[in-house]
């Protein structure tokens, strides 16, 4: 269960989990070529409480509903979602303007293991838009910095111009309390950073595997190989956490759209240990 107190919104969610709350777009920002970030104010004036790694079902009225991870700071500010426009619903959501209404149902799911990571080194591995669900965890790690050991962010993107939250990533790179390495798959001569896949950064990682927790989010193929690279580094399968993406509909473990074997991604995840996911990831077309 999420480690947040019960708000009025949460109470309503428990009573009527399929009914969205109304929010309005406060601000929108273009964060990557096909990704938009929406800042939302809840119509009831409440602050939206959630745990890092949880997701909401967002409604584009008249179009449909889609599962989108929260990408903001769980401790302050508005509710923030970063959306890649890939289908009709996400396209409609990404085109919402300031003041437009939006439906919010959530928060749902099990998030990142923030409590389990306390006292440990934390390696955060993000690929592409996978940085969005990890950003709340990074905010928490940096806000409560003394609770954690060494914090490392390894971030892979397609091209330099596709780097999500680029200015913020640059700010993090300038901090002394987090190690940030960014790599891109394809680059022109102007790029001065790493080129190569994100697993390549793991091979250079200097960490004590016995006291390290990993949080990984990105395309599923990338996560499989990142998990294997972390295992090669000596991390245990129980200490590697992956955030899964599936076609979520009800978000409460009833409809089965997001089912992987006996596991409901929406209810039991989206964050799982590699130990739990490994047999499922090996099954093709699940």
């Amino acid at each position, binding site marked *: 269960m999420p480690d947040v107190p019960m708000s009025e919104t949460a109470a309503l969610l428990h009573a009527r989990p399929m009914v969205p709350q109304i929010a309005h777009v406060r601000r929108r920002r273009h964060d990557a070529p096909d990704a938009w970030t929406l800042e939302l104010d809840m119509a009831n004036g409440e602050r939206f409480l959630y745990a890092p790694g949880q997701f909401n079902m967002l409604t584009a009225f008249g179009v449909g509903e889609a599962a989108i991870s929260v990408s903001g700071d769980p401790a302050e500010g508005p509710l923030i979602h970063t959306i890649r426009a890939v*289908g009709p619903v996400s396209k409609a959501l990404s085109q919402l303007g300031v003041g437009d209404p939006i439906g919010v149902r959530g928060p749902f799911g099990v998030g990142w293991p923030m409590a389990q990571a306390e006292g440990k080194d934390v390696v955060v591995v993000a690929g592409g838009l996978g940085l969005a669900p990890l950003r709340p965890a990074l905010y928490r790690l940096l806000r409560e910095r003394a609770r954690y050991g060494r914090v490392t962010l390894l971030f892979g993107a397609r091209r330099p111009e596709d780097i999500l939250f680029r200015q913020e990533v640059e700010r993090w790179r300038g901090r002394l309390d987090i190690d940030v390495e960014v790599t891109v798959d394809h680059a022109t001569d102007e790029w001065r950073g*790493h080129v190569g896949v994100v697993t*390549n950064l793991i091979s250079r990682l200097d960490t004590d595997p016995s006291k390290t927790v990993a949080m990984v989010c990105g395309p599923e193929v*990338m996560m499989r*190989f990142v998990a294997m690279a972390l295992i090669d580094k000596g991390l245990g399968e129980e200490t590697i956490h992956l955030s899964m993406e599936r076609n979520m509909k009800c978000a409460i473990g009833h409809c089965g759209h997001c089912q992987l074997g006996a596991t409901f991604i929406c209810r039991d995840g989206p964050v799982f240990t590699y130990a739990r996911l490994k047999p499922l990831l090996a099954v093709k077309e699940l």
Partner: protein
Amino acid sequence: MTENLERILSEHRFFHGLDKAFLELAAGCAKNVRFEAGQFIFHEGEAADQFYLVREGRVALQVSAPGRGAATFLTIGPGEVFGVNWLLPPFRWVYDAKALEPTRAISMDARCLRGKCESDHNLGYDIMMRLMPILIERLHETRLQFLDLYKSHA
């Protein structure tokens, strides 16, 4: 001088744990080199007569295409190696290598090292066993790059 190179070689990830006698043989083919930021180390088409072990800095491996400029497909950092075309015919570079920042490396004379591997197959086998995992890993990484995983699949 060679003793110092032996120590540097033994501290490099590529040669870490190499038998001392082999290390002496390898050091006989090695020299320290330094490149400035922006300096090309070699160009596509030239003879692959060196093999490089990076100690400090970063090197971009690039292929140029008309109208698209230079595309970097891999960067190499401390503890890593580049220039593996030295090992087998036709001993020719198939990409450009350019220092992105001030870079220090060990340059191994390819003809010298090939000769020593040829005359001492145990050394040759050891070096091959060090190179193969790197080549396999790079092939795997190239496959992942080719899959273009982060591209939006609308």
